[in-house]
């Protein structure tokens, strides 16, 4: 997927003026955040679990190479074919080759951010494979031609009315107002695909090193169907998804599910170890696991390593007040919200996504919500500093910062400036707060007043009242 994050501001403004989107966001984000907060509050051991999960992730990342080697060895021992791709292009090449060699005509896909990262659909198209997204939200978003708006739920941002219009326009279905009818329409279309598909494509929530297993979580069951019914199962996963032992899983399952949707556990937990063996009732005949690096090794070596702790629960999105206002579209790539504002610059390039770290008030709600303690706020702040070093800041901003520092280095200069600004603002506002300010503050006062500088700032009043004792 090509990043479109430079247009953050433009797309955010569009989102703010889209009444239907605003209703959907308030409804969906409000609901999911309330459920998340309640689930976390009712989980007594939340802090302890968070601490443990964070420690496990950090430990795993510090020896990621070893754990990956173990995963590959164990998975292959059990009959899986493991591929490793350095970048998206190589990953697409592998996908196309697998699809051709396995003779696949139709692939069913369940929502996978890793697959979106490598633009897997391009690879399948190139290999002449027809592809159907089976995640209900993903299916709708795909039909509507929109990028996913949430890690968990791609059509998070759409109202029932919007979904109905898409089905009418793209599928020729009659309009429907209720969620049950709409999901029945989608399910009927999808069922046909499951029975015809030669390959199921999924992501992975975790990879277990000691058994070579792939762990898939879902709430609508489509990921399980896609993994078990078709002849071939292709898993696409980032290299950071590995956990060392099966015994490590429970803490992550509990945290992920609560943080994602407020449920104590996901509806479906599938642990897939190798392809179908003799005597197995179901399962794919061939299992391919494609591990993608796509910039992760570089992150692992640098100061943002902890960003790889992320388990893609979406809690930071639900908790973020900015995401709550503008939704996922403006972030412009696979990962929206605070984790997107960190991962997009790291994976797709800071020059592509320099606007994202600025799109936060640094209120810290994301860091507080994260179940594995990714220091999101601190990373956003760090990335803002990186843009300076990489020459990505506007010259005007740097000039402003230099001017600011030269004023603040001497109290006398600040005092003089306060006097000048005070005189000016009183001239304009005649004792009232300012209802308009010049560029670049014009936007600030569009719906807010700004106070005039006091005729006598505190430092001046103090001298008058207390004498210059200090």
């Amino acid at each position, binding site marked *: 997927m090509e990043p479109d994050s430079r247009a953050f501001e433009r797309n955010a403004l569009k989102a703010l003026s889209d009444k239907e989107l605003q209703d959907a966001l308030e409804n969906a984000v409000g609901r999911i955040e309330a459920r998340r907060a309640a689930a976390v509050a009712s989980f007594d051991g939340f802090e302890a679990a968070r601490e443990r999960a964070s420690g496990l992730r950090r430990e795993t990342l510090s020896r990621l190479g070893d754990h990956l080697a173990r995963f590959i060895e164990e998975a292959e021992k059990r009959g899986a074919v493991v591929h490793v791709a350095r970048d998206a292009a190589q990953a697409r090449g592998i996908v196309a080759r697998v699809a051709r060699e396995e003779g696949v005509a139709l692939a069913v896909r369940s929502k996978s951010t890793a697959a979106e990262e490598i633009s897997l659909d391009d690879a399948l198209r190139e290999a002449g494979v027809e592809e159907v997204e089976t995640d209900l939200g993903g299916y709708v978003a795909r039909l509507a031609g929109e990028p996913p708006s949430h890690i968990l739920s791609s059509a998070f941002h759409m109202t029932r009315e919007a979904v109905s219009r898409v089905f009418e326009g793209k599928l020729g279905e009659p309009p429907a107002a209720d969620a049950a009818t709409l999901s029945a329409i989608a399910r009927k279309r999808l069922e046909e695909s499951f029975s015809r598909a030669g390959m199921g494509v999924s992501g992975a929530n975790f990879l277990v090193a000691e058994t070579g297993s792939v762990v898939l979580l879902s709430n609508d069951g489509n990921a399980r169907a896609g993994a078990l019914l078709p002849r071939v199962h292709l898993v696409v996963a980032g290299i950071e998804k590995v956990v060392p032992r099966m015994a490590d899983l429970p803490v992550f399952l509990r945290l992920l599910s609560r943080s994602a949707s407020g449920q104590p556990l996901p509806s479906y937990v599938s642990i897939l170890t190798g392809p179908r063996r003799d005597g197995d009732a179901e399962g794919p005949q061939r299992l391919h696991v494609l591990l993608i690096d796509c910039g992760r090794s570089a992150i692992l070596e640098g100061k943002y390593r902890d960003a790889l702790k992320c388990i893609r629960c979406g809690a930071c999105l639900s908790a973020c007040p900015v995401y709550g206002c503008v939704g996922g579209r403006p972030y412009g790539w696979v990962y929206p919200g605070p984790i997107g504002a960190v991962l997009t610059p790291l994976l797709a390039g800071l020059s592509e996504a320099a606007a994202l770290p600025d799109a*936060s*008030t640094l*209120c810290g709600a994301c860091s507080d919500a994260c179940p594995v303690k990714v220091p999101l706020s601190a990373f956003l702040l760090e990335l*803002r500093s990186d843009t300076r070093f990489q020459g990505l800041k506007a010259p005007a901003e740097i000039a402003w910062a230099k001017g600011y*520092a030269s004023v*603040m280095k001497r109290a006398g200069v600040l005092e003089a400036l306060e006097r000048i600004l005070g005189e000016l603002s009183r001239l304009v506002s005649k004792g009232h707060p300012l209802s308009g300010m010049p560029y670049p503050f014009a936007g600030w006062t569009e719906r807010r007043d*700004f*106070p005039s500088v006091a005729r006598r*700032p505190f430092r001046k009043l103090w001298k008058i009242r207390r004498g210059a004792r*200090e």
Partner: protein
Amino acid sequence: MDPKGPVSASLFFSCSADAFAPDVCFAATELLERFGVKVGAPLSQTCCGQPAFFTGNRKEARAVARKLLRSFPDDGYIVTPSGSCAAMVHDGFPVLFRDEPRTLAAARAFAERTYELSRFLVDVLGVTDPKSPFTGTVTYHESCRLPKGPKAGAADPPRTLLRSIPGVALVEMEEAGRCCGFGGVFSVRHPQISCAMTERKIERILATGAEYVATADMGCLLNIGGMISRYGYPVKALHLAQVLAGAPRVEEEEGPP
């Protein structure tokens, strides 16, 4: 804690309170003096460096932060009515000076002595009742940037203090801890998103029917107060210090300039 002997504190007044709300600094002074603190106001202080730090202009932020470190006497407490300024000292300076061991050590020692006003009252002076004559219904907006660092003391000093004022009825708003949309430079760079967040905050404030909304940060106060002022909403934004001191309004002008 019952401090032995007179406690002295330097007021770290925050550049925005200095310029836009001197009465907030006087309310803080009055409050501290009410509990026997000898208050000084080092006049060579300017700013803590937040605006540059939060935009990622660290070189400039360091220059301003160094100036702050130099502006205060070597002993005694440092108390500020602005939560985010205290957070800057506690959480920001260690990042800013991570490659300068000597300044880092000085900054850590400085942070040890630095308190946000309500935390100072509760944790250091052991105040449980601010003895405020303030009367009215008050709702409290939690600023996101009260220091979260290592200094864990009383869980929630602002609420502890507000609840003990006999004339104050504290009415909780929904989402009291949700950001009001200020975010410093964020509100300049993304004014529309910022205002959307502020509107949501104002809705929650108005839903309480409180006469006053109090907050412990100058940024939130400018932001929330600015929108209330523009639309004439029937609620007044006050700094927490003004409620605790009991002086909603201090005369602005006195004597010749």
